[in-house]
């Protein structure tokens, strides 16, 4: 537990497991998730799959502490339902499907927002804050955009900046809601490479995806939701029966693949 000394006492233990139990989650009187149990170990990348309306986004929002539910979310020994807002922000980073941010803030300031929960009320950036921002910009390949205005960036660049902001929190858990939906294939591949690097560095990554092949290729395992319940939790290569049942499609097994895509160097 004390192996990574560069993290200060304020940050949670990096080797903690994430444990999510949701006995029921209701939105507007309708149960959208029930009897869900999910444990993630550091370094894992879990795909959250399922048809529209299966409860994927609700699951992520519940873990991020944005909607109430019956159950608990624990990271190591901490019950995240009981910690303060800043404490949770230092443990869980969340990148929503569509950010509402549309302002002319400089990219550097947007990424520095990830440090909010680490700073005092006066808000002077410490050397550690600066380092976290520079590191996040470097990892997401947005260093060159540092002084640009957020609103002038392309959709793909904006997504990378929002990922950088999430990474600057140094939270051990990163939640992403369809992060590659607005990216072209080259940028999507790059983005997945960045997520894999994150998991390899010991973070717990949960990503909502629609493309089953992306999940199979980039994630260690998959959680498949169907009508608010877990239908599959395990290998990211989904059994044909699961795909057929959950998505209501006919699946034809085929070994052949026309081409493989590689991220540009």
């Amino acid at each position, binding site marked *: 537990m004390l192996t990574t000394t560069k993290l200060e006492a304020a940050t949670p233990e990096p080797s903690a497991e994430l444990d999510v139990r949701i006995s029921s989650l209701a939105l507007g009187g309708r149960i959208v998730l029930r009897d869900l149990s999910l444990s993630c170990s550091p370094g894992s990348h879990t795909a959250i799959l399922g048809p529209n309306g299966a409860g994927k986004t609700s699951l992520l929002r519940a873990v991020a502490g*944005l909607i109430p539910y019956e159950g608990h979310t624990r990271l190591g020994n901490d019950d995240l339902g009981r910690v303060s807002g800043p404490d949770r922000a230092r443990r869980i980073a969340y990148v929503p499907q569509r950010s509402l941010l549309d302002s002319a803030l400089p990219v550097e300031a947007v990424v520095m927002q990830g440090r909010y929960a680490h700073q005092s009320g006066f808000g002077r950036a410490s050397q550690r804050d600066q380092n976290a921002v520079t590191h996040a910009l470097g990892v997401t390949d947005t260093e060159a955009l540092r002084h640009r205005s957020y609103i002038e960036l392309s959709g793909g660049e904006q997504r990378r900046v929002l990922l950088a902001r999430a990474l600057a929190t140094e939270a051990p858990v990163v939640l992403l809601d369809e992060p590659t939906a607005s990216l072209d294939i080259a940028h999507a591949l790059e983005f997945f490479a960045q997520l894999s690097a994150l998991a390899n560095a010991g973070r717990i990554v949960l990503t909502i995806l629609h493309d089953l092949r992306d999940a199979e290729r980039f994630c260690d395992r998959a959680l498949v939701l169907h009508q608010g319940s877990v239908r599959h939790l395990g290998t990211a290569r989904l059994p044909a029966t699961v795909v057929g049942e959950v998505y209501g499609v006919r699946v034809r097994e085929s070994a052949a693949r026309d081409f493989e895509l590689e991220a540009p160097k």
Partner: protein
Amino acid sequence: MSAAPEPRLRPLLTYLLLGLMLCGLAALSASFGRSSSDDPALASTLFTLRLTRTEVGILVGAALAVGGVLVQGLFRNPLASPSILGATEAAGVGGQAALFGIQSLLQHAGPSWIQAEMFVPLGCLLGALVGLLLLLWLARSTTDLLALLLTGFLLSSLFLSLGALLTSLSQDNWELGRAMVSFTLGDLGGSGQRQVLLALPLVVIGCVAAWFWGRPLDLMLSGEDEARTLGVDVRSVRLWTITWTAVLTAASVSVAGNIAFVGLVVPHALRPFVGVGHRRLIPAAALGGGCFVVACDVFSRSIPGQADLPLGVVTGLVGAPAFLFLLMRTQRRLGGV
């Protein structure tokens, strides 16, 4: 860290320029007027009057412009300002209610050293708080830009009607009636040194607090959910922002009545120079607001004619077209045309 110094230097240069401009305008405003006198005593009285007027202008401008920055950040709406959201009207009704209520009470009983006008700032503060909280509650579920503005517009009509009702009820008492009417017009001339001293601490506290709340307001630009996941206590930020806006609006309304559009025009004019970050924008808005109101006041006094043009008329003449321009620009951007 090889950042060009330019992005950091620009706000400082802007503050410096605005500060110089404010000094120049204040000097002009204190020395300029339609009447003049060779009698030194009279000249000195005129100077004192104009100086007070200038001080009121600076306070009002700073308060309303910073209030504008706060509500624009809070509602994520570039078209918001205390007057457009009905906060100044609510503060006005609060002030009138305080005048009316305390005066009626004092007529029957009470020591003579208590004057109704001492309660005006408090009434304005309560009025502005009620108005803003009502707006927040009515608009709680809407993210639509225009729905918020419409709600604010309806609230401000409601408060104006209430104010008119109070004014007509107060016409039995000539003094009170006159005070009520001048209160609604929006003018810098009606206040004395005492009101300035009452409003000054409110404006200073409001501006400094606004600066401190600038950082969470930057995060709120991403919407409440994202701000929350980054560690912002959204509910507390919302309540405090409303409180500081109410303090600033109340301070301004209690010394100068209803002056519209300052909170809309000034922040917009300054964002291109200092950026959208609240901590950079707020000092610029305080200085720029002072410049704008004092300049409008000098202009209103320089128009040839028998009587001064009320200040609210001048800011309205500048502000309403600016509002329309911004509305059209925003619509075009949202409409994707």
